[in-house]
């Protein structure tokens, strides 16, 4: 069912590893060249920048072509006609994706990815238009409208299964968030339904992953698992998932009226239980993405605990969080470095991948530019005293609006 042969994808995986190792000087240039020649395959790839631009222009072409078709041939069509044609475009886009993969052998090339994304988009828009033409505004009350996100989620999962695009599970998860809105108006029930669907997905990943532990598929499953863990956490953490209330997130005390007290406090307890579970699983399986999901969940738990408890936020709270994060990092590093060869229980603080160096260099250049703007807070309304902040020009806060 996979669009690419296992041998080709395994060769791509091997090439990525070789590049990593060569970047860290574990291989000489001659060794790297020779080994790379022996891991060739017939897939056509490109670098990340061209991939992004190719993705963008494919979206432009498909969008313009579809719109042009409507303008030239249909004028002002009825909703049902529009929907049927959109479904037809979805089929064409999907067929084009298959062709781009099977004939042109494109692999993470941007073009086939954009075509796949368009097929999902057209599918949802088409179903929505057809349903609306039949049920009008009652699609919300009858629950039929849930067909749209359901179809989107299934299509995204199929794209993931067929082409292995790592962000497809995220798209499926986003579609799932819209599902319960058609079924119930109860906020707790909506949270529970989404969490249950994510948990089911997680169980499926648990069942499938072990057989791919050391293959090229491990990375894809790792990303899916990390996203699902994070999705469950965000849905359970009511301080994050009540998106309509995000605006007053920093306001401190939050009303709990929309949720029953047992539900509210159960979710609070789970927000404390989930991060260690995720972290433990990630560390036990040595899974970078799951560890990252656990670390993010842990940080979010610390950051949202006060609003959860209805306590007032203090200006020094971020300082305490920062000290904790830095302390954990230094302690872990020292603990690992203290072992023979700097390796303790299979973990090390040393850099072992050329990719890590590249990520850090790119991240340092990018975040070094934007971080001063992010961290300097806006002046507090009605606060006496100085009003510096903003860091508008990015000059590390020194350029604030005095």
């Amino acid at each position: 069912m996979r669009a690419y042969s296992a041998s080709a994808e395994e060769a791509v995986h091997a090439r990525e590893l070789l590049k990593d190792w060569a970047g860290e000087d574990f291989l000489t240039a001659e060794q790297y060249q020779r080994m790379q020649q022996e891991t060739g395959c017939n897939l056509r790839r490109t670098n990340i920048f061209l991939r992004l631009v190719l993705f963008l222009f494919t979206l432009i072409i498909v969008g313009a072509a579809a719109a042009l078709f409507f303008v030239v041939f249909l004028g002002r069509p009825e909703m049902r006609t529009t929907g049927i044609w959109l479904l037809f475009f979805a089929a064409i886009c999907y067929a084009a994706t298959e062709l781009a993969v099977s004939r042109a052998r494109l692999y993470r090339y941007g073009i086939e990815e954009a075509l796949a994304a368009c097929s999902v988009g057209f599918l949802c828009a088409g179903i929505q238009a057809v349903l609306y033409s039949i049920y009008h505004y009652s699609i919300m009350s009858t629950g039929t409208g849930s067909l749209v996100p359901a179809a989107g989620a299934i299509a995204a999962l199929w794209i993931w299964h067929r082409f292995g695009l790592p962000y497809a599970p995220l798209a499926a998860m986003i579609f799932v968030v819209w599902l319960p809105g058609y079924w119930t108006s109860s906020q707790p029930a909506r949270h529970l339904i989404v969490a249950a669907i994510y948990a089911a997905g997680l169980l499926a990943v648990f069942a499938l992953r072990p057989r791919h532990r050391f293959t090229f598929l491990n990375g894809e499953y790792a990303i899916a698992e990390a996203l699902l863990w994070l999705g469950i956490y965000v849905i359970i953490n009511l301080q994050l998932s009540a998106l309509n209330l995000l605006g007053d997130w920093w306001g401190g005390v939050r009303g709990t009226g929309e949720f029953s007290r047992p539900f509210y406090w159960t979710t609070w307890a789970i927000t404390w239980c989930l991060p260690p579970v995720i972290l433990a699983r990630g560390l036990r399986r040595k899974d970078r993405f799951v560890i990252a999901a656990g670390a993010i969940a842990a940080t979010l738990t610390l950051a949202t605990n006060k609003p959860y408890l209805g306590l007032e936020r203090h200006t020094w709270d971020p300082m305490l969080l920062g000290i904790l994060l830095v302390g954990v990092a230094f302690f872990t590093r020292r603990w690992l470095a203290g072992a023979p060869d700097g390796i303790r229980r299979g973990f090390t603080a040393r850099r072992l991948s050329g990719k890590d160096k590249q990520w850090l260099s790119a991240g340092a250049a990018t975040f070094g530019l934007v971080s001063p703007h992010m961290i300097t807070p806006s002046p507090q309304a009605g606060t006496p005293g100085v009003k510096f902040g903003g860091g508008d020009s990015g000059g590390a806060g020194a350029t604030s609006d005095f």
Partner: protein
Amino acid sequence: MAGGRGRNAIGEGGIVMDIVSRLDQWKEQGTISPEQHTLLAGLSRSEPFSLFLELNILLYAGILAFIGGLGWTVSTWSEQLGDVVVLVVLSALLATSFWYCFSRAPAWSAAESPSTGLALDYVLYLGCLVWSVELAYLENRFHLLPGQWDFYLLLTAGVFFFLAYRFDNRFVLSLALSSLAGWFGLTVSHWPSHQDAAYRQYAILYSLTVGGAGAALKRRGLKSHFFGTYLNIAANVLFWAVLSGVFQREGYAVWLVCLLAACGASLAWGITRRQFSFVAYAAVYGYVGVSAILIRDMHNDTAFLSYFFVTGVAMLVLLVLIARRYTREA
């Protein structure tokens, strides 16, 4: 695929060799030594597993959270705490950070220095951010340079450039470049509202200065690996500035010529140096600029959509040709 630590397995494409099997083969062929085989086979199974990236991200997030809280606390509570307390605390943090860095840093080298550990980079970053907070506080409270606070930016940029080169730190280099941008009058968050001619000139001057300085320092062999950072920032600022000229209602022709010249240079640089971010800049900025002019007076839907379809296909073909010619096959 094979389960567990399966070596060879039958896949859809026939025999599948996983990385461990390949390493075995390369060892038998003598391509890699037994020691390399042991190391690489372990790494392919995440043995040992490196937490290097995670620890760096944790430190970076921690420093940002700390400085964010520090700035917020100082701005909120300065009157209650008093100037002396605030300045003593900030100065102590600053002095301790810089003392740590200067006392632990290895001897300076013009080439890329090997990393001396996690602490130094992030303590330096902390020190630089504390410097900024303290400088902002000083000016706000004591008005040492009333109406001329841009000099603080120049001073800050100078200090950060020195520190970036002394400690070989890209974080601090980026801070220096953004401070210098501030001095030139660039304010990232003000882009949409300040597209006047003077602003554009400053932006172009900034990008030329940064690009030229980066090239000169590279030519002199001073931290040549920083050149990519200089060039990327200079290119983006230049493109934004020129694009803002193209979007003018009048006198945009000269800016269009400048944009095309910049795109040509960026494309040539990207292809010859295999730095494809510059190819992407040329494609995106060039397309946006040229399209802005061509569709400006286009009021017919069919013509408008046809334009995007035809030019989109043309761009796609061009980019695919570049990709096929210059980038990798798998």
